[in-house]
C-alpha cells in the first residue's frame, strides 16, 4: 500500500473510532467536528487515542486528541507523523 493510501486508511480508522465511541454514524462527522460537540470528555480522548493505536498498529501520542481541537486536525497530525516515520 502506498504512503498516501496508508494515510487515507489511517484517517478512515480515526473517524471510524470516533464514531464508534461517540455512538454515531461516521457520515455524521466532519473535519471540524470537536470531541466536545460529541459529548466526549478528556478520558474519552485518551481512550480514543489508545483504540486508534490498537487498530492502526502504530504508536499514537495519547494526548493527541486533547492537543488538536477537531478530529480533522487530529487525524491530519496522525497522518503527518505516520508519513514522517515512513521510509
Amino acid at each position, binding site marked *: 500500500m502506498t504512503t498516501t493510501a496508508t494515510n487515507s486508511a489511517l484517517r478512515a480508522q480515526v473517524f471510524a473510532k470516533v464514531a464508534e465511541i461517540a455512538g454515531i454514524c461516521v457520515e455524521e462527522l466532519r473535519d471540524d467536528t470537536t470531541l466536545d460537540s460529541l459529548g466526549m470528555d478528556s*478520558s474519552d480522548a485518551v*481512550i480514543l487515542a489508545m483504540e486508534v493505536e*490498537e487498530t492502526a498498529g502504530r504508536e499514537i501520542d495519547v*494526548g493527541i486528541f486533547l492537543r488538536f481541537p477537531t478530529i480533522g486536525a487530529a487525524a491530519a497530525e496522525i497522518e503527518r507523523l505516520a508519513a514522517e516515520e515512513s521510509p
Partner: protein
Amino acid sequence: MSLHPGIPISPIDITTPEFARAPLANFDTIRRTGPVVYVPSARATLLLRRSDVTAALRNEKLRAMNYPGVWSKVGARLGRDYDAVIRLFSYMPFMQEGSRHETLRNAFATGLARVAGGTPHFAASVAGKVAAMRRQGGADIARNLSRHLLFDIMCDVMQIPTDERSEIRPMANMSWAIESSITLRQRDEFANRARICIDYLSAHARASIGRTGPGFLSELYEALPAHMNDKFAAVAMFATILFVMGNDAAGACVSMGVERLLDPALPSPPQVQWASVSDDIIRYAAPVDFMLRTAAADTEVAGCPLAKGQHIFASVFAANHDPEAFGERHLDLTRESDVGLAFGAGRHLCVGRRLTRTVVKIAFEALAGLPTMRLSGAPLHGKGTAVRTLESLPVEFT
C-alpha cells in the same frame, strides 16, 4: 477556545515533557500572557499567582479530580484488569473527598506522625548512600541518592529485607502514572507493578504487625477504623502510596535542590550550610505541580466564573516563584523562607509534609560531609510532567 472571554489561551502547552524540563522559563513566558490562562490540551484553567492558587486550594467547591475514572474506562473498554490501580487510588487521600478523605487522611497522618520527625533509620540509610558516593569519588545525585531516598528509608523503617526490595523498588519511580495521558503500555506496566507491590506489602504487614513490636505499620493499622475490611491490605496501600508519590517528590527536592545549589550563575550558601536552607529548596523545587481540581458547583477562581464540571490547574511551582509575592528573590535560597505552597494548601495539604521536610534536611546534612561538589554533566529529566523528577544529575568532587 477559552472558556471565558477574559481568560487568554496559554502560549505554551504545559502538559509536555519539554515544558517540564524548564518550568521557570516557561512559566515566565506564560505570565507575559496573564496570571490566568486556559490550557486547551488539558481543558483546564491554569492559575499562576500565589494568591489565586492559595484561594483555589482552599475553595470547598473545587474538588479532587476523578483519577480512577480514566483507568476504569480504559480497563473496561480495552479489556484490561486495572483493579489494583483503582483500589490503590481509592486510598490516596488527595484523590478523595468527604468522610472517606477524612478517614484516610487521619489514619495516614497518625501512622506518619510516628516517623515524620526522623528515626535512626533515616540518617543510617542516607549515610550508607553517601558513603558509597564518597568511595566512588564522584556520584550521580539522582541515581545514587535521591531516586530511592525515601523508598529505602521506609523499607528500613518497615524492616523489609534489602534482598526483598528489587521487585517493589520500581514503584518508587512511577509517580508519572497519575497523569491521564500515559500510554496503554505504561498503564499495563504500572498495574502490574502495583499488584506485585501491594501483594508483597500486604503479606509483610500481615507477618509483621503485632509480632515485631510497635512501629509504623502497627500505628497505621491501629489508626484505621475497626470496621474496615482487610486492614492489612489498607496498610499495604498506604505504604505503596508512600513509595509511588512520596519517594519521587522527596527525591526531586534533593536532586533539583542540588542542581540549583551547584548552579554557578546563582548565589548559594556553601555546601556545609545546605541543610539550613532545605525548606527554601523545597519551595524552589516544588516538584509536585499542577494540582488538578474540578468544580463541584458553580464558583469563581481568580475573579473569573467557573461552571460546575470545569477544571483548574493550580500551579504551586508558579505560585512559589510568583514575582508579585517574591520579586526577584524567588531565585534566592535563604534560611528565612519556608516551603511556600510546595505541599499544597487547604484540606488536601500533603499529609507527608513533615516527613518530606525531615528527609530532605537529613539528605543535605549528609551531603555537607562530602568533598565540595560541582556539576559534571547535564541533568536527565524524568518522564513525569505533573511530578517533575531528575533521573540523573552527575556531580564530581573537586
